[in-house]
């Protein structure tokens, strides 16, 4: 069963087309990588899939719901890691996650477990502003999974994560449907069953892993 079904997703920024007629179907539990050069439309597509942006035209169904009308219901089931970590630098790692527990309507007991999962237990009390860029990215990933989302939308999560990025992401992606934008073809090949390659907002098809390696 497809978790994400998109038909003709198109997005314009003024007179510039960012996405053009993207059709997608992503099955439950499937991991799909989105590849492409800078400006190819990866972030725009991911923001639309995460319900952070509305497409100019096209239809999008996520988990059987109209993503343009049922955004609030869907946001409880989607985890999104954007380009910027979007953390509160004056609050500790724990306080950042506790705050989002309240907004997500989940118990604060999830915080310690999530911090352990992203490898931040030892800096739990340190202000987010004093964490390294990689640690901030881990915290942002922790925030995205704290409500146990069914669909995880990750926009270049490997940026600044370090050498164990693939292992961490593999652990977090298990049993979830994932859309992952990255520039790292090897990472995409390792973590995802399928890839969508974008160029100038257009889909170049969905090559298999073998094509990518070649």
């Amino acid at each position, binding site marked *: 069963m497809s978790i994400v079904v998109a038909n003709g997703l198109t997005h314009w920024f003024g007179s510039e087309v960012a996405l053009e007629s993207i059709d997608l179907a992503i099955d439950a539990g499937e991991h799909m990588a989105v590849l492409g050069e800078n400006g190819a439309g990866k972030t725009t597509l991911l923001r639309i899939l*995460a*319900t*952070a942006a509305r497409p100019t035209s096209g239809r999008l169904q996520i988990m059987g719901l109209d993503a343009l009308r049922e*955004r*609030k*219901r869907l*946001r*409880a089931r*989607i985890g*999104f890691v*954007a*380009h*910027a*970590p*979007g*953390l*509160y*630098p*004056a*609050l500790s790692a724990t*306080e950042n996650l506790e*705050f*989002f527990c*309240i*907004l*997500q*309507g989940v118990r604060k007991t999830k915080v310690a477990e999530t911090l352990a999962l992203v490898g931040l237990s030892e800096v739990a009390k340190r*202000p987010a502003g004093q964490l390294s860029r990689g640690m901030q990215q881990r915290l*942002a990933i922790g*925030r995205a999974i704290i*409500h146990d989302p069914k669909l995880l939308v990750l926009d270049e999560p490997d940026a600044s994560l370090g050498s164990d990025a693939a292992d961490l992401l593999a652990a977090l992606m298990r049993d979830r449907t994932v859309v992952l934008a990255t520039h790292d073809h090897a990472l995409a090949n390792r973590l995802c069953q399928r890839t969508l390659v974008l160029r100038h907002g257009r889909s170049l098809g969905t090559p298999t892993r073998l094509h990518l390696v070649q």
Partner: protein
Amino acid sequence: MTNSFSVAVAVARKDLTAEWRTRELVPALAQFVVLALVIANFGFQIDAHNAPSIAPGVLWFALVFAGLVAFGRAFAAEREQASLEAMLMTPASPVAIFAGKALAAALLLVVCEAVLLPALALFFGTPISAPIVAAVLLATIGMAALGCLFAAMVARMRSRELLLPLLTLPLWIPFIVAGGHAVQVAMGASGSYDQALALLLDFDILFVVLTSLAARFVLDE
């Protein structure tokens, strides 16, 4: 399910905690209002006779400009940290998030007023009384609701520093008129204090309801 009241309280507490730890806004605002009073003190020939008629104007000038800074920062900080989107990507109601931001900004302005009113009494020799405090606090509620709504609207715009006063000041005029009148009467001018206070309350209810209805569209779109 998220509880809107819990969300609003959590957002306000988060903003107040961040301000307590960084002390970015309140010390600067306190300095600003004291400096404004010092300038007014030297700019006007103040004596015991004219102080009650000049002090209310100075009070509202200082309050309005301190409010513009306080409410402008409420969403500017979220924009700089790219954290507003993270909040909006949760199932929490945008209205509850807005209410929390407005509550925190209003409380920060109240702290600033706690400096402003005694300083006004010191420089102008006008006593602080409960009617003055009540009028200022009532005006703060409506001003915070409107100020935060426009701050949220302009947060993503390049010329936000210019746009915020242009949008906000005209709609703050009712609060300045009614609040100014209430403070003048409380300082000894003729007129009805109760009527001015009732008008402030009416404006508060009107603008809190209107901004709550508009907040959803401003924040979520």
